């Protein structure tokens, strides 16, 4: 009998699209499995650890049709599954990260009771010297079996503030504008889209009208608006990748650490003068020298971010050092408005850092050099005179002046 290996591991833990589709169509999926067995194919399905209920539901439905089925844990060695064969075996994986499962060799490790170890020899030898099978993605299998009707692809759209929406089907040939429309974000405010792993490409606002190429696969598309800082976006993307890095190669593990650390520094006002040059130096080499595609993709994403958003990122550590979009907390400052301050002195009392100057009936002034952005002054002010400002700062006097308004 032929064996077919189907992978329902999510690429993004936050966007388990294949699994969502399986859960939604469990009855039909069971029917497809029964048909596959009848046609002479044994199935091995790989599901995440938390999907035991789905696995139970699916195997029960398959068993009801008289087909032998079994659920094994990812830590069980393959021999056990071989010893007690069944036409449909569902393997519940033991780990919850995702990117690595797009690598066939890595995903196949799980069937041998090992951890997923990726390799660039996709489809070659596994950990235990056995040939790694070619894996089919869960969504592709469901579509091929006729469970999914449409021709498109399912994605989870991520809002500008990071919320994952329920997957929607994007028709073939859909454009960035279609995604924006589906997201409900005002198109005028959109700065870019980010097509998630493994496509991992930014689509800048200027190219929203073009059809999206999702052929490499993509479970999540994030929408960025003008209020999103792209340095902060890269910081989050790189940190996400750090969680996925398997540690088997220097450029993957250490390269992704450098990228994550540098963006982490940039967004917290610790950027260094040649940071983007350093990354520009690293990324082309890193992209070609990781073992698998996971961290190479981060290197390419970083290169693209530098090309598209270099000026915005550089502004964090050059010249006036600002976060142009105003998103980065470290760049936000506190100011006391002349139009509202009554000179009561409550803010001065609340400040633990001695950063506020002023006396009764004078407009108080925050010494930015001493301020630690703790926000105590804003809490203390009953008149709403203390404000937090991002990129655009209000005009304030250099030293206390007599109040223009009174309590």
């Amino acid at each position, binding site marked *: 009998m032929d064996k077919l290996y189907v992978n329902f591991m999510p690429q993004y833990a936050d966007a388990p699209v294949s699994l969502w589709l399986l859960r939604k169509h469990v009855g039909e999926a069971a029917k497809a499995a029964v048909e596959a067995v009848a046609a002479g194919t044994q199935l091995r399905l790989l599901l995440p650890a938390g999907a035991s209920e789905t696995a139970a539901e699916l195997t029960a439905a398959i068993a009801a049709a008289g087909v032998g089925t079994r659920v094994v844990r990812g830590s069980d060695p393959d021999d056990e599954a071989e010893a007690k064969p069944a036409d449909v075996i569902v393997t519940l994986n033991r*780990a919850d990260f995702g990117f690595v499962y797009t690598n066939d060799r890595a995903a196949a490790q799980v069937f041998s009771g090992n951890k997923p170890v990726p390799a660039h020899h996709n489809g070659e030898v596994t950990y235990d010297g056995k040939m790694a099978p070619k894996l089919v993605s869960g969504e592709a299998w469901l579509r091929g079996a006729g469970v999914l009707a449409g021709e498109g692809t399912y994605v989870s759209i991520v809002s500008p503030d990071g919320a994952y929406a329920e997957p929607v089907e994007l028709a073939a040939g859909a454009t960035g504008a279609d995604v924006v429309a589906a997201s409900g974000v005002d198109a005028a405010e959109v700065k870019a889209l980010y097509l998630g792993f493994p496509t991992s490409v930014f689509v800048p606002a200027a190219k929203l009208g073009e059809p999206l190429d999702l052929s490499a696969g993509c479970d999540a598309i994030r929408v960025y608006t003008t209020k999103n800082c792209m340095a902060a976006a890269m910081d989050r993307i790189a940190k996400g990748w750090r969680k996925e890095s398997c540690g088997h190669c220097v*450029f993957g593990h250490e390269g992704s650490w450098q990228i994550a650390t540098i963006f982490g520094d940039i967004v917290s006002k610790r950027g260094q003068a040649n940071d983007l040059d350093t990354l520009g130096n690293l990324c082309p080499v890193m992209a070609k020298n990781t073992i698998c595609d996971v961290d190479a993709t981060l290197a390419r994403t970083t290169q693209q971010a530098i090309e598209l958003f270099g000026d915005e990122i550089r502004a964090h550590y050059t010249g006036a050092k600002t976060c142009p979009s105003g998103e980065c907390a470290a760049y936000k400052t506190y100011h006391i408005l002349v139009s509202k301050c009554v000179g009561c002195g409550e803010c001065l009392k609340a400040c633990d850092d001695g950063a506020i100057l002023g006396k009764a009936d004078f407009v108080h002034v925050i010494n930015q050099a001493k301020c630690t952005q703790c926000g105590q002054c804003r809490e203390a002010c009953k008149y709403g005179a203390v404000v937090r400002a991002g990129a655009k700062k209000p005009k304030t006097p250099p030293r206390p002046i007599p109040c223009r308004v009174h309590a």
Partner: protein
Amino acid sequence: MKLTIDGREVEACEGQTVLQAAEDAGIFIPHLCAHPDLEPVGGCRQCMVCVDGATEPVCACETLVHEGMAVEVHAPEADRVRKMAMQLILATHPADCSGCPKFGICELQSMYQFMGVSPQGWRLKSRPVPTDESNPLITHMFTRCIRCGRCVRACREMRGVKVLDYQRTEEGIRIGTDGHVSLVEAGCRFCGACVEVCPTGSIIDVLKYSDPAKSRESNVVPCRAACPAHINVPEYLRAIREGDYDNAASIIHERVPFPEALGRVCTHACETDCKHGEINQPVSICKEKRAAATFESGEWKANVRHDPLTGKRVAVVGSGPAGLTAAYYLAGKGHAVTVFEANEKAGGQLRYGIPAYRMPDDALDHEIQNILETAGSGEGDPTGAPRIELRCGERVAQPKDLLSQGFDAVLIALGTHQGTVLPTKGHELEGVYVNTAFLKAAREGHHMDVSGNVVVLGGGSVAYDCARTAIRLGANEVHMACLEARPVMTAALDEIVEGGEEGVILHDAYGFDEIMESAEKPGHVGGMRIRKIAKFYFDENHRAVTEFVPGGELEIPCDHVIFAVGQKPEGTTEMGLELTHGPYIVADATCATSAEGVFAAGDVVTGTKTIIGAIAQGRTAAESIDRYLGGDGDITEHLARAQRHDPFIGRRPGFGKEPRLEPKVGAAAERRTHFCQYEEAFDDATAHAEADRCLQCDLRLDVTRPRLWNEY
């Protein structure tokens, strides 16, 4: 096939990688994750080379050679990737090498110095991981780990143990066990392969087994090093595990002619140093020797050394373990040996110093018979005389004189057969015995009277032999008093425990006050007064100081007192040889004495020590005497068949918790009534199971050692 590496023509085989071809040709290509014995992964990017003019570098560890290939190790593109990778590694590696135990032998250090790179310009931060010293034998200092994965591959692929793996943590990936459990819990087999392949100071041997004063082999296989005769312990345990008792016996016989005796009464320094002792208990190495001797069929005899006769004659005075060992090896080298034994039978202390319930006559007779027989007759000698002639009942008062009686060399291996009597008040009373005479009489079957109560003075093995012999001879109560507190007594723990079971009443940390005269039988022992010691130490002048517990006197009514406080050689003062510490013969490291042609070995030189120590001395003496007689001094024998070392030891959950197996021992109430050996030999299944506990530390020595660049 031929290829060129940096312009040098190199011969290589089909299927080799570029890295292997370069290694074979002695050309250094930097590499960290690649190891000669492990599958390549291409993760460290140190072995980048450019091939056939291509500008895109590839990993030498994964690229196969082909005919006419042109490899450039230091093409600029290759160097760029290599150096950047090294900089990235160093950026998160602790900056200071000087405190690292691998300083100077670290592959990472050697390689970055070779490349001349530093991590300046990158974000620098070493990842602090606390040093983990909670595991036996292996210390983890993962703050130094560079994730090359050699240890993981060694553990999973080379050994099949599958304990180490990459683990996700908040700080990134590190090496560890699944669920971060201890190595014992994870089922580690403590083979040390991970330590062996680690290119940095991340996985290292615990301090005890990485002593710079010792050789690498002594640190790695301490049992073999601890044995005075250096018996190949892991190798014979391996043979037993395979059920090949013949080969096990051959391996033992390659170093010692007394497996029967050593399998019963050896002090087994090997077990003291056995690394398994750090996990739970040492392997029962000693008793495995007895198992080998029990189940073997004598295959080893086929390959015993029989060099052509030299025409030289050697006299050996004393037929104990030292004397017979020397005789055996000298016979093998073609010398005719005459062994003079003052007693009725051969064996020395094995026969007259150790009670029959520990060393039965038949086993000893069999062993001595083996030695005499395998040494064989003098082939090529028309008289057909045996190579070893044993002459019992002949005391040699003047060994030196033998040189003028046709012998070319003399070995004095007298042992220590004169017991020491302390000048304690009452020591001249009737009923006071001395250890050597008491034990010998018992062994010869005309034992001394032990009716009533017996007090044995002394806390060593011989004291226990006396006490337990007295019990078997029917004494009423048997007491033992010794200066040492129980934890520092020289007797072995099993002797103390078994003696106690048989009824020996131990008074530890007592001074000997007086042997009291009997009121009823004047001139005869009536009791023993001892005093509890509070403190015993040596002062600044190295004089012993004893402080007593006030009111700590104890009077034990008794009829006999046996001194078991030491023994010394007899008759040496009359031999005209240089002596030391009283009656001990001065001999140098080659066993040569102050008289030319006269050698000395065993207890008569070292003082009362161990059987295995005496055997080791016997070997040394044989080597020296052979050299003295014009031979090459090489007494090596090749008796064993070569054994396969299977590096794939496989998974065995719970391995570290498997308890040590002990031989079956007769019940105390029963064994105290006779002199038969009460400890059984291992049966086949137990011998196998216990041998299977061996960590096989020697497998580590089979792992290829990568060379540092300055060794090419």
